[in-house]
């Protein structure tokens, strides 16, 4: 029974049908399916399929936002208190640096990471590098994810790793993404990784965890 309905949830999610997805996940809970299982078999596998579809040529913002929104609603059903599972694989601090007010891409990253079991602490937009690093230190973050949509933020991105090591936080990895940064190489931005898409970023973090 639950097998079948998890599939129904998966389909609803992939279609981005938010209300159906919520109905299906409520049904699953009523049938005593554990939230963890709904996350791994429903949400995470929806994300994996979306990931496969989201190559650079195949990307469609609306499709991703639809799925993302449905996922976030289901998370709220599963974890009514704060919309994310109590134990997480790790913490990721995200932000857009001073002068950059774009946050749509960063919000998608948050959804994808949350769906994959990470906790995201978002410093918002127009955020000074120092604030991003303070937050990462406080939260004992695994990684910092910098999102950049306008080219003007590049000099700030280049500083992040240096300041981290100055403050003895060199173990925190830095990844960058967003339309203005993804053409650049990790060396030129002085970061550990440059992601083409939000999924790319998740693969990178998954990989850090595996190595650990």
């Amino acid at each position, binding site marked *: 029974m639950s097998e079948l309905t998890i599939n129904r949830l998966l389909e609803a999610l992939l279609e981005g049908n938010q209300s159906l997805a919520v109905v299906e996940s409520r049904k699953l809970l009523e049938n005593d399916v554990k939230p963890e299982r709904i996350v791994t078999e429903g949400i995470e596998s929806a994300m994996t399929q979306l990931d496969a579809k989201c190559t650079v040529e*195949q*990307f*469609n913002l*609306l499709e991703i*936002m639809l799925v993302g929104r449905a996922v976030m609603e289901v998370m709220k059903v599963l974890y009514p208190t704060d919309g994310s599972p109590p134990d997480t694989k790790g913490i990721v601090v995200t932000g857009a640096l001073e002068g950059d007010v774009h*946050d749509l891409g960063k*919000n998608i990253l948050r959804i994808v990471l949350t769906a994959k079991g990470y906790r995201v602490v978002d410093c918002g937009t127009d955020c000074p590098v120092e604030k991003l690093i303070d937050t990462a230190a406080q939260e004992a973050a695994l990684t910092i994810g910098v999102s950049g949509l306008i*080219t*003007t933020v590049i000099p700030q991105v280049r500083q992040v790793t240096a300041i981290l090591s100055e403050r003895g936080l060199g173990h925190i990895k830095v990844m960058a993404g967003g339309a203005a940064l993804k053409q650049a190489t990790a060396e030129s931005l002085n970061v550990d990784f440059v992601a083409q898409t939000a999924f790319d970023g998740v693969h990178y973090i998954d990989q850090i965890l595996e190595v650990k």
Partner: protein
Amino acid sequence: MPLLIAKIEKSERRIPFTPGRSLRDILDATESRVRSGCRGSGACGFCRVQIEAGKVNEPTPNEYTLLGSARLEKGIRLACQVMPEDDLRIVVLEPAPKSNWRSLFAEEDEVRRIKTSLTLREFQSEVEHPYGVAVDLGTTRISLSLLELSSGKRLAGRYGLNPQMRFGSDIMTRLVAASESQIQAQTMRQQVIEAIGEAMLDIATREGINLKIVTRLALVGNTAMLTLLSGRNYGMLLQPSSWMSYVDCLPQDTESWAVSWDIYPRARIEVIAPLAGFVGSDLLAGVVATRVTENEAGALLIDFGTNSEIALWDGQTLWVTSAAGGPAFEGSGTSCGIPAEPGAVYRVSLENGELDFAVIADGKVRGMCGSGLIDLIANLVKSGRLGKTGRFTSNVPGECFKLVEGEQNLYLTKGDVDVFQRAKAAIGAGINILLEKAGMGSRNLHRICIGGAFGQFLNVGNAQDIGLLPNIQTDLIELCGNTALAGCEWFLLSSEATKSLEILTEQVKIINLAQCDDFEDIFFKNLYIEPMAGS
């Protein structure tokens, strides 16, 4: 449409045209211009062509004088004196030297001039019959026109690429380049001053106009372009904190410009100040030219570009914002996009399920411009080939839609649709948010004026079907062309226009989309390819 086949140097061009213009004017709209030295009055004798086939009007007296009957018998004519009505085949005997500048047509703005009848300034000057020049300094394009100050008549106009493109196609990249190095800032500044001079020189040599009697010049532009032109405060725009405040960017060395342009040495050069933040004097000029604030009725002005500027008049307040949708409607950023120039598909229509299209100037398809993109997407949705979320349906085999295939290819990819959706959503969200701030709905709109990227080609119905424009009666929507240049001409010509500018600045409220909490939700809704919500 009748077809003109023109042989020029070694190539042959096929140019569909609407009768009513001289052959010189028709050629002027393409890259294959004929030489010319008298504004087409039939006085210089430079614009020689040979008619190979097709019927045209009898030679004019000027042609008898300048060409003689022997040449006329061979079919040699002056292009400015020939008014073709039907299909025609010609050889351009005297091609114009290559230029970075193309002609703007006089008729387009003449229409606007009649609608707006302001009183002209009294010009006191040491020069008899002085001329004035109006300049619209755009991020992508520089457009300028030369007018007779006493009558307000536009004698000639030119447009060409802003040479700063070499430093980056968008304003942010250029502002950063200027902030990085004084030398780069100086170069960009110089490039624009020189480009304006070059365009004026093109007019002078081609139309036989004496620049020494240009006694006045007015210039409008977006704030970023004005800071780069004056070399002042370009760093300010990089800080979100200054987006709502006035940016001082009036140049302080205009006397030296007059010298380098070789115009009247004491010419009055006036750069119109921007409003605040990114809202430049180009938008203000557009508001003055279209007179959207003229009465109580609600009206909307959209100036399409990489950064589209939107102004909404609610009867008392003018709400303005700028929405950075990217350059998709200017024919850039997509795999198939090119600007609206020869070879661009500018119109796509749907008949019995089949798509048909029209190409600017010669028959060869090189890409698709903004208006073509809108038509294509609207018709793909209408014919069930594209879903409203931007996904191709099973009616489209493969990964993309193939409009033209064979010798030339023109494909619309899924990625192109995505880029289009974002550009449309940014503008749609801008419109929705302004309407919301003003407490209005589309039913309160009695007029929509469209300026910028689309020129005269936009199919308004299609633009509404895909949600780029609010749904109001299509006859209330006007295609106004370059409203910034038209407004700038008015600043040049009339003190009333300058006064209305002063009143305007008191009525404006700037909205920063980045500070709207529900931007993401509204943007999301506008990503759908469907008519705009709300009434």
